[in-house]
């Protein structure tokens, strides 16, 4: 009878593949990541190179997406912006999900003052108007090539709390399982129990959470950049490009159209994959059953 049962991974894959939107989303994300990585070789121009023959030119053979006011190639800029946005999104998602996992799991496992203190911090960070604070700090920083790192840290700092609360409540329910008690009575220490038994069992949430955090971080960076508080020039991101392009949308639409299409595609795909993962992990969801 055991042979007839599917391994958990196969089951996940089967359920995930059944969700066509998610599969398309995954393909788009992979394509975008590949394009971002090989970007510098896809364009004859560097993103910060200036073509003195072409200021604010519409798309042409030489510049497939046109040029900016300062004569930079839009195609090269979009590729670079995509790369930066992806890096920001991935790093922020990874960091904030990790923080959320650690804080949430430890708070729930140990309980007592640690839990109360963690919840206090979480609540405090939740009531602070994070957008304003990030805008102030990022806006007043000296700028330069590493300014995006500061942005990543700030986005992480204000991005982990809700996930941590979810991790905490999930840990509380996983903790009820007798295998946790069994591990304790085997002599396993608390941190090891968390790493070995609790986190793997809430991994599904963590993966979904990280996926959705990617799009959250990209959007947050975009809106900051739109108001001029994001990645500082000459470096650029999709948000910065959008912000610049939006100001001249009616007269020079190519400045806006490229980055906007890419970011919409990216966010939609990430969310589709996140939803697909959630359905695949959750056996009670609609995706399971008939098939």
């Amino acid at each position, binding site marked *: *009878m*055991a042979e*007839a*049962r*599917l*391994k*958990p991974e196969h*089951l996940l894959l*089967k*359920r995930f593949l059944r969700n066509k939107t998610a599969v398309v989303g995954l393909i788009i994300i992979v394509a975008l990541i590949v394009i971002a990585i090989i970007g510098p070789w896809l364009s004859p121009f560097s993103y910060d190179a200036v073509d003195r023959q072409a200021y604010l030119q519409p798309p042409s053979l030489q510049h497939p997406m046109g040029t900016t006011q300062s004569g930079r190639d839009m195609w090269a800029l979009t590729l670079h912006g995509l790369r930066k946005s992806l890096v920001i999104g991935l790093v922020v998602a990874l960091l904030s999900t990790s923080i959320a996992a650690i804080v949430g799991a430890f708070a729930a496992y140990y309980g007592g003052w640690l839990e109360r203190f963690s919840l206090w911090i979480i609540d405090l960070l939740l009531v602070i108007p994070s957008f304003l604070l990030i805008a102030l700090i990022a806006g007043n920083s000296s700028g330069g090539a590493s300014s995006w790192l500061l942005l990543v840290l700030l986005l992480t700092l204000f991005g982990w709390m809700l996930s941590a609360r979810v991790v905490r409540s999930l840990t509380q329910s996983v903790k009820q*399982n*007798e*295998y946790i*008690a*069994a*591990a304790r*009575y*085997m*002599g*396993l220490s608390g941190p090891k129990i968390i790493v*070995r*038994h609790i986190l*793997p*069992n809430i*991994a599904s949430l963590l993966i979904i959470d990280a996926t959705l955090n990617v799009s959250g971080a990209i959007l947050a960076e975009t809106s900051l950049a739109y108001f001029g508080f994001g990645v500082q020039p000459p470096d650029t991101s999709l948000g910065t490009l959008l912000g610049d392009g939006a100001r001249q949308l009616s007269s020079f639409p190519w400045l806006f159209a490229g980055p906007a299409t890419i970011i919409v595609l990216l966010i939609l795909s990430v969310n589709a994959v996140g939803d697909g993962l959630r359905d695949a992990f959750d056996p009670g969801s609609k995706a*399971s*059953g*008939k*098939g």
Partner: protein
Amino acid sequence: MHLIPALKPRVKDKLRIMATTLLDVQNLNVRYANEAGSLHAVRGVSFSLHAGEALALVGESGSGKSATAMAIMGLQPDSASIEGSIRLHGEQLVGADDDALSLLRGKSIAMVFQDPLSAMTPVYTVGEQLIESIQVHENGSLSDAKNRAVELLDLVGIPEPHQRINAYPHEFSGGMRQRVLIAMAMANNPDVIIADEPTTALDVTIQAQILDVLQIACEQTNAALLLITHDLGVVARIADRAMVMYAGKIVEQGSVNTVFYDSCMPYTMGLLGSLPHAGNAGTNKLSAIEGNPPSLLTPPTGCAFSTRCPLVDSTCLQQEPSLIKITEPDHWSACAHHQIIRRDSLTHADLFQPKPATESTAAKALPLNPSGSKNEKVLEMLAVKKHYPLFKGSVFRRRVGTVYAVDGIDLTIYQGETLGLVGESGCGKSTTTLSILDLEPPTHGTIELFGNDVSTLDSKQKRLALRRKLQIVFQDPTSSLDPRMSVFDLVAEPLGIFDYNPEAISARVNELLMLVGLDDSYLARFAQQLSGGQSQRVCIARALALEPQLLILDEPVSALDVSIRAGIVNLLQELKLSLGLSYLFVAHDLALVRHIADRVAVMYLGRIVETGSVEAVYENPAHPYTQCLLSAMPIADPEVERNRVRQIPLGELPSPASPPKGCHFHTRCPKKSRLSADQQQLCVEVSPDLNPAMPIQKMQEQDMPVYDNHSGSEASYQNTKESTSAHTSACHYNYLV
């Protein structure tokens, strides 16, 4: 108790309509679509239910019994597809839409579910829910419905129904809620009541009460009862006819007496034989049915039971035997060898001979534990109390009370001995085991493990060294195995903590799996790929990994199917002999404790009320609570069940936060009512100590140690403590019969 007026004439007609068929199920097939394919859960089930009868549908989990019930109610999940015919009063239910079925549900067919905790909406009062179920089908006034609800609550034995009707479900205990659910099922005088494992979630004393209520309900409404259960004792107690289901098919059907006494299907015989009972208490082994039920994803070609059947031959494998009428009037069985069984009048003992208790694999795999004198105490608990404070408020937490979870108990376990700890849920059994395992000093008293007082454990190393001698096997094997780990990782985990090297771990894991009867093909499997019995074997292997001396078994088989239980119990017995283990066996199943334990301690509201050798306690129970427990215990023998005189404790277990003063049991004691007022006064005021359960003369005759009789003094306490094997009982009137 007054009857519902409308019912009276119908009761009189009971005999007349006995023969009419209410519910007729023909060739019912239920399939569930899931990831792995189509699961054929019910495969061609046909039966009919007559007015006024109680029909039991018996089977293990996955046998399709609940799927059958859900199909009748029309409550199957969307992924199920149903074929065949279900007729109620000749009206076809298969294919009827939900609105049409809603008119029948509650009105003609009512259902009592297994879990009373989740079968009521928490935000409405019990009365509102009961009135709702009345008014759904009747257009009476609210006050009529309310009067009816009070009547119904009275009928199912809820005290003070006028007040209790305004209570919310959380204010009721599990047993009370199940009574309310039965009242709801009765509300519209249904023709058929389907009870799906109605007492499985309840304690044995409450189970006895609920079965009585269920019988009253059926008599009052003259409804036919379809009882779905895995408990053969319950079947023997309540049913007129029984059907045994295996792998989605009915394999035997007949009157209860025929099925229990003249079965000719090896599966039924094996089930009955695998139960521990007074008859096989002395022998070491239960006759277990080997193996597991087949998966219904790929329907078997031959007899579904052939892989586990001792009578199997080539005819069994060719085609699945169909249900054949064996004897008149109504005994059907699906076995190719029914003639042989009947001709030679084979019994389960002929078919499932328990293997002799050889020192088989177990003894070869491991040397005996070195430490071994019989008189060495592995555990000694003296006057242990474990109290939990009750707090209220979130900002300014204030103490509002105390839960007296464990309130002064003494327990001793010697090397190589099994102590059974018995009691209802909420009596403090689990707190006792946890306070041993925590290795923390209790609120009061001392716990000594292997001669070390746990309050002297000051370093991590000392604690860890003690930890490995003490392991636990939990009740629910699936929840005690991490679903993300393979069997190898699971069993190896404790070894990793104590720094074994990789080769030693690998060798030891193989050895352990062999010890618990699994081969190394299981190493790479995950918990979901194991059956319940296999999971519990892995749990046992894991617990044995560090060569413990004391194993705490917390209801180790109660989550398993009947046919699997015997195998695990045999394994535990075998391991105890070959490894010299000591067990603390916590259970609510008294028959099982009798089978496996050497001594038994009965616990009630945090105290031990009776303790002694298994023979003494079971043969001559002295404490009224023990007597109640034993009398409530269902026995899988219809004749015995029908002729038993029951002594059932009154009401429900009081809260351990406010235990009654004096003797904790006096609020429920059936003996108390037979005492004089002065004698009763003593019960209410003074808490009894454990005293010899037999008169002194009789003890002297039997050459037993004699103690100072109940004075509550320190001297008698000390004496009792010294000889733990004596039969003692905490009742002021031990000698009064």
